[in-house]
């Protein structure tokens, strides 16, 4: 009886112990007979990820998270994962933590950091530690959505306050105006399109003209080359040089003439001055001319004298012998 008790108790104890140990190991994802290596990563926050969660590469489960702890300093969280040794990891490997489903289970996915340039990965302290980033969980998203909904509610209230009947009318009017402006813009655009078409045609034509002008210029230059080659320009330049010399002589003569004109002008000035003096004397009644100017009777006498003198000259001309006797010897 005692022996039987010992056997049974021993059997039950061992069975219970084995069940507890191997059951725990199995439920922890212990990989018997598989070569696993530890991989470390650092995060600023690990969300709800913890020991036992799956580690995946491209969606395939390759291991489990074995430990999560806060590093000294408290700014980074270190995660140790045990993954299959035969699975190649990307050269720029990083770890992204994300909810595996909507029910609180998380996963760590080893990815290429280049595929997620907008993720702010935590800087690892060493080259053998992978950078990590945790996506926001559903609670954070819900909190954000809650804030957005509150903002939308505020916005809706404000719109409700601001959107009166008058606002609606104004809005309708504005829409009508916008429609009208749109129509006008459409017409303008059509007109502009037509104008642009014409301009384009004109530009096209001008381009043709320019092409032809270029051809003409080219022929002119050709001819000019011919002229230059024939020496005509040199002769022309010689002629021009002579003409220029002629012009230079003419300019010198003109200069001399100008100087002479200056003398003449000064002499004219003195003449005019004397004449002016004579006129002043005459106006003052001095001299013959002055008396003539100032005495009408004398003028009459002079005129009579002149008439008689004219008659005398006529008579002399008609009858010269009466007054002149010319004898030689």
């Amino acid at each position, binding site marked *: 009886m005692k022996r039987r008790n010992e056997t049974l108790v021993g059997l*039950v104890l061992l*069975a219970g112990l084995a069940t507890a140990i191997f059951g725990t190991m199995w439920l922890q994802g212990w990989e018997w007979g598989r070569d696993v290596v530890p991989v470390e990563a650092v995060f600023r926050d690990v969300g709800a990820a913890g020991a*036992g969660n799956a580690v995946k590469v491209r969606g395939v489960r390759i291991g489990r998270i074995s430990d999560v702890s806060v590093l000294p300093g408290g700014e980074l969280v270190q995660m140790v994962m045990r993954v299959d040794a035969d699975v190649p990891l990307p050269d720029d490997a990083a770890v992204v933590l994300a909810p595996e489903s909507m*029910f*609180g289970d998380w996963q760590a996915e080893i990815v290429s950091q280049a595929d997620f340039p907008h993720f702010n990965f935590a800087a690892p302290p060493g080259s053998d530690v992978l950078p990590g980033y945790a996506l926001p969980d559903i609670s954070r998203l819900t909190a954000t959505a809650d804030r957005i909904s509150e903002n939308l509610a505020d916005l809706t209230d404000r719109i409700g306050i601001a959107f009166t009947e008058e606002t609606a009318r104004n809005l309708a009017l504005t829409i009508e105006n916008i429609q009208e402006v749109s129509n006008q813009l459409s017409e303008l655009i059509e007109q502009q399109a037509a104008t642009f078409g014409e301009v384009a045609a004109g530009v096209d034509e001008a381009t043709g003209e320019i092409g032809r002008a270029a051809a003409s210029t080219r022929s002119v230059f050709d001819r000019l080359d011919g002229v230059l080659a024939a020496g005509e320009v040199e002769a022309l330049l010689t002629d021009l040089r002579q003409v220029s010399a002629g012009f230079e002589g003419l300019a010198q003569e003109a200069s001399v003439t100008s100087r002479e004109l200056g003398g003449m002008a000064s002499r004219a000035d003195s003449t005019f001055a004397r004449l002016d003096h004579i006129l002043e004397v005459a106006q003052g009644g001095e001299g013959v001319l002055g008396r003539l100017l100032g005495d009408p009777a004398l003028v009459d006498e002079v005129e009579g004298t002149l008439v008689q003198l004219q008659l005398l000259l006529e008579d002399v001309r008609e009858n010269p012998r009466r007054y002149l006797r010319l004898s030689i010897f």
Partner: protein
Amino acid sequence: MTSRLLAPLNWVGGRVLRGVSSLGRWGHLLTDTIRALRHVDVWLRLVLAQMARIGVDSVPIALFIATFTGIVLALQASYTFTGAVPLYFVGVLVGKTMILELGPVLTGLALAGRVGANIAAELGTMRVTEQIDALETLAYPPVAYLIVPRVLAGVVMFPVVTILAVALGIAAGWVTALQLLDMSTPEFVRGLMLFFLPFDVWFAVIKAASFGLVVCMVGCFYGFHTTGGAEGVGLSTTRAVVVSSMLILVLDAFWAVTLL
């Protein structure tokens, strides 16, 4: 007239005195039990037999209860999770519930009925037939001879039986999920492993050990203090089962508050 007026006071006073007296006896028994641990030569050779009686003999009833608990858990989980929640959460619910709660508590309650009653009846009978007095007369320490082996056996074997019950309960839920719920093994195992923590097992072991301690101590207490012949034995047995069952539930809440 006066006696009628004083009757409630007498009742209250009597209750309090009995309660305090009971607490005192509990204290005495606990200290005697701890003190009796030094008599290793007395209790060591008796522990194995008690482990067989308390533990090994209780395995079938514990496994029976756990099997049907696992089946019911899987079915109720699938019934509850229809629609929004993925079916692999059946594994989560079966695993977590069996390990953390139903495995230890149902095993503890079942063993409270079987082991607690057995101990109380056995010791009560020994008390009313003056066998315990005879032990004292023969200079055998009765606590070391009768209580320590049972308590130690209960503390050791309750966790073992609980672990086996939990394992079988999960296995039963697994089979149920495969056969009745159109689930695959990977799905169920995924749920089973999803939120598993090694601490869950420790939690179950700690709870089961505490349940074993309480059940055996309560059975020993009521059996050791049995009075009144056969009727007293029956009363002690009933009290042992009721009190140990209540204490199991209280401890269950205590550990949940303390450890989780």
